[in-house]
């Protein structure tokens, strides 16, 4: 009962501290519950969509002329295969959304019963049922809307050798397998009669790289097959060779991973941040307890003199802080409900699936329980000092602060009175501000790391160094591949007009390496490959692999591997390692000689990365004039408009601003709490300053400058931490998207924005928190 009475009194008297901890816990619990729930919801929604669409374990796109009935039968007869389904489609490589060419491969299929979900026009919900499609209409997936910014009612045009086809976008449907903005090919739907008409018109050969007939093959493994999808695909290909004939193939596990990849990365980073916030709560709690013990030394001494044991006093602290945490956790969990819906929506443009809005209570409660257990340990450690409280010392006032000069002490200068006095207030109480510095450093590290990630998504050189080829000028051959003379001509025209950073004649296709179907890039000039180690694949039996592929398949430079494509099988040597983000880094590359050996002939795409991107439009015009109508030329000075990273960039920005917002709120609470304690500790000094002529405004300014100094030191430490660890942290996190060597690109705004934000917040919040200075009366110094 005595403890409860004291608990009530303490909470009433120190309601600032109590509310501060409650608020911090609300934020932490809301953040954690939201992220855990969104992470789980996105994964479950993807799983459910796959189940509803009855997605196969192995999917392959095979041109009709490569797919024989015997081959298909061989797969159907395989003992591990439950059944095989095929869908007739038209491959369309030249499509224009709102007159702008999209560079992905689209497969046009007749609308079928597999499509079970359709979005409302604003993507906010699913319709009750899929609406019938008109003969002039087309249904797209949300990934296309994300990348191209198209909407219902827009026109869409296909170009084939037979002519042009224009359709109206009538809606967007759920295609869980390739609907995501992260997947490089897309399935789109037209009315069955439209499909028949289109298919009849299209040339059967797809070698022209423009349009062709393709069969989508779905292979389902037997229910009792315990193999992973990858093992299943390898076994089927080893026994039937079907994947060697596919120009694209993927397992269900791979596609789910690609779809979920980005949300997983963002959620992992956000969870890391949430953990930092939880750590901040524990740190600030320790600080508060330590300061409270110092400030309430006399009261604690009196309690001891009255018979309170140290154990009971520690229980009092424990109850006080745990109660605040529990109250905060409960409110935070409730507040996470709208946040889950809001935050889950951020990933929808990327996953193209509406995420569930369930609250993952179990995981959240478990994590909150861990935080509470850690809090108990922290409180036990922080309250050890209670044992040292002496009733005699407390009552005789021997526990006053005593200051000593230290190496950080600098003289108070008349010229910079505010600054030097603030610095003295800081340097003579370093320990008191250690917590604020630590918190600032952690927040700064996180803000800089996320900022680095975001700015790299917008930095051409950084993205290129990490394995993405970004170009301002593209040239595509219409209906055919370039001739050798044309390739030389294109290159020389561009070189005459501007300085090149890099340029490639490029082609890609899926090949099998040691039985695994892997994305392969073919380069006319292998010297343009972005090598990490070893040497470029010059000879026709050489190839290079990415670090990620090498690690996944246990390969190293000098190893021999078996490469297969359709009827070709041959031995290749790994000559080096290179960087590429394609297919989440599971990529290999070979030279023109290697391409010819495997049966891949001709290039239909040229890309030029210019030293001065502003030259792009002029170079494009010259190319158009000199090359004529046979080539499609795309020129844009903004590489991000040409690349597919816009949607990712948007999500990263959303994450960045969320982290900024939470950092600002945390700084507000932390500064208010520390200011409040500091204010109580320095009340007497504030009275003295007033007595000698300082105004409240000047004293508030001193407070604000002191916290600005703390923010400067914390920011500097956070920046150093970022320089030391951000690259490693991001490389570790982004390895899953194929970035094994994250290259940081510190731009002025990368550092300046978080630094200014933290400094500004510290200064402003400290100034606001110090408003109580006005209430300090000089009379308080009087001893009557």
């Amino acid at each position: 009962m005595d403890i409860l009475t004291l608990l009530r009194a303490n909470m009433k008297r120190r309601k600032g501290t109590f509310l501060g901890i409650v608020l911090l816990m609300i934020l932490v619990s809301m953040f954690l519950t939201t992220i855990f729930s969104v992470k789980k919801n996105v994964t479950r929604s993807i799983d459910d969509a796959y189940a509803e669409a009855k997605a196969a374990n192995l999917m392959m796109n095979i041109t009709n002329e490569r797919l024989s009935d015997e081959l298909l039968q061989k797969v159907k007869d395989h003992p591990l295969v439950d059944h095989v389904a095929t869908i007739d489609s038209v491959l369309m490589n030249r499509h224009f959304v709102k007159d702008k060419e999209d560079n992905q491969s689209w497969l046009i299929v007749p609308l079928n019963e597999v499509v079970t979900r359709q979005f409302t026009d604003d993507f906010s919900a699913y319709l009750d049922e899929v609406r019938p499609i008109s003969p002039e209409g087309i249904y797209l997936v949300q990934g296309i809307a994300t990348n191209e910014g198209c909407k219902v009612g827009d026109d869409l045009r296909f170009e084939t050798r037979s002519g042009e086809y224009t359709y109206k976008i009538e809606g967007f449907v759920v295609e869980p397998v390739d609907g995501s903005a992260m997947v490089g090919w897309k399935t789109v739907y037209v009315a069955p009669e439209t499909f028949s008409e289109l298919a009849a018109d299209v040339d059967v050969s797809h070698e022209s790289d423009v349009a062709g007939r393709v069969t989508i093959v779905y292979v389902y493994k037997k229910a009792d097959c315990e193999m992973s999808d990858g093992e299943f695909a390898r076994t089927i290909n080893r026994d039937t060779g079907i994947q060697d004939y596919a120009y694209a193939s993927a397992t269900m596990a791979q596609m789910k991973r690609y779809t979920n990849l980005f949300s997983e990365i963002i959620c992992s980073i956000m969870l890391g941040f949430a953990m930092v916030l939880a750590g901040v709560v524990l740190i600030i709690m320790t600080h508060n307890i330590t300061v409270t013990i110092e400030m309430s030394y006399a009261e604690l001494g009196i309690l001891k003199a009255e018979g309170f044991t140290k154990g009971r006093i520690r229980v009092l602290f424990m109850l006080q802080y745990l109660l605040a945490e529990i109250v905060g956790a409960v409110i935070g969990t409730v507040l996470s409900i709208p946040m889950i819906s809001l935050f889950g929506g951020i990933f929808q443009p990327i996953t193209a699936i509406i995420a569930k809005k369930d609250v993952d209570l179990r995981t959240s409660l478990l994590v909150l329980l861990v935080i509470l257990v850690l809090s108990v340990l922290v409180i036990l450690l922080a309250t050890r000092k209670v044992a040292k409280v002496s009733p005699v010392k407390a009552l005789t006032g021997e526990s006053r602060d005593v200051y000593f000069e230290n190496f950080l002490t600098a003289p108070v200068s008349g010229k910079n009175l505010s600054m030097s006095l603030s610095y003295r207030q800081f340097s003579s109480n370093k320990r008191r501000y250690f917590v604020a510095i630590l918190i600032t450093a952690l927040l700064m590290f996180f803000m800089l790391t996320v900022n680095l990630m975001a700015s790299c998504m917008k930095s051409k050189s950084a993205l290129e160094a990490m394995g993405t080829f970004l170009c301002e000028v593209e040239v595509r051959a219409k209906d055919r591949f370039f001739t050798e003379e044309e390739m030389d001509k294109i290159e020389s025209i561009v070189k005459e007009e501007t300085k090149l950073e890099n340029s490639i004649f490029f082609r890609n296709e899926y090949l099998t390496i040691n039985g695994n179907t892997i994305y392969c890039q073919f380069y006319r000039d292998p010297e343009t490959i972005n090598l990490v180690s070893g040497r470029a694949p010059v000879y026709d039996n050489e190839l290079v692999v990415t670090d990620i592929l090498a690690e996944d398949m246990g390969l190293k430079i000098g190893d021999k591997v078996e490469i297969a494509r359709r009827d070709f099988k041959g031995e290749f040597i790994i000559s080096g390692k290179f960087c590429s983000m394609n297919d989440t880094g599971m990529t290999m590359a070979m030279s023109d000689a290697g391409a010819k050996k495997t049966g891949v002939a001709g290039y239909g795409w040229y890309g030029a990365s210019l030293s001065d991107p502003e030259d792009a439009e002029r170079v494009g015009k010259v190319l158009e004039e000199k090359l004529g109508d046979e080539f499609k030329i795309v020129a844009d000075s903004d590489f991000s408009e040409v690349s597919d990273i816009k949607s990712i960039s948007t999500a990263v920005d959303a994450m960045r601003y969320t982290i900024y917002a939470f950092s600002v709120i945390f700084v507000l609470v932390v500064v208010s709490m520390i200011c409040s304690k500091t204010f109580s500790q320095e009340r007497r000094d504030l009275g003295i300053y007033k007595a000698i002529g300082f105004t409240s405004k000047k004293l508030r300014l001193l407070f604000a400058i002191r916290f600005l100094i703390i923010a400067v030191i914390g920011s500097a430490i956070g920046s150093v931490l970022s320089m030391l660890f951000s690259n490693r942290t991001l490389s570790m996190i982004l390895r899953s998207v194929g970035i094994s060597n994250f290259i940081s690109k510190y731009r002025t705004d990368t550092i300046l924005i978080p630094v200014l934000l933290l400094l500004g917040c510290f200064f402003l919040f400290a100034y606001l928190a110090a408003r109580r200075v006005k209430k300090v009366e000089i009379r308080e110094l009087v001893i009557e």
Partner: protein
Amino acid sequence: MSQNILTAHDLCKSFAHNGGQVHVLSHVDLEIREKDFTVVMGASGSGKSTLLYALSGMDKATSGQVLFDGKDLVKMKEKELAQLRSHDFGFIFQQMHLISNLTLLENVTVPGYLNKGKSAAEVKARAEKLLEQMGISDVKSHLPSQVSGGEQQRCAIARSIIHEPKLLFADEPTGALNRKNTKEVLDLLTDLNRNGQSILMVTHDLRAALRASRLLYLEDGNVIGEMTLPPYDKEEEKSRETQVNAWLSSMKW
């Protein structure tokens, strides 16, 4: 006759207590004269300190006027009062109240820096000179916690006069000091007054009262007696003590 430097008219100060009002100062009328060493005496609870704080603008009077240079302190805003404290008034507390994380020299220079009329170098030079006069220049780089109470109070006196105030207020400046330090501090104040410094001091220490050129007696928030004395002379301390004691007895002290 010296001119009035500070005038109080009908000064009242009351506090809320147990749902009622306690009147600590009751319609006080008072003039403080330039270059005087005015000492206010009275029993504990008579309102001495309250009067001092109200006259110095450190505390607001409930009603009445405190006029300094023609301006009423009671009506002054915080900024004007701060200006007054940093330019025209000096204050010595019973408990010294030095800033604990500043050295003795810095404790003296900081209020001097607030006075825009002097350069930082001039302020520092004057502070060093004052500390030397106070006999504590050898400990000027020490923090308050590293020096004795007497040294702290001498530093507090130096701080209070760094900006050459027109009027120096002292609230029981010897209240926390031993006999030796008390004498030293009183000698310093006497010297300051001899050099023209106007002082208003509150005390209940007879030894301190002997230094006064004018004695006021406060009872129940009212000035009920006044005595004028010649400038302090150590040689005549005995007779001065007898004279003051007699006066205090008449005040029923």
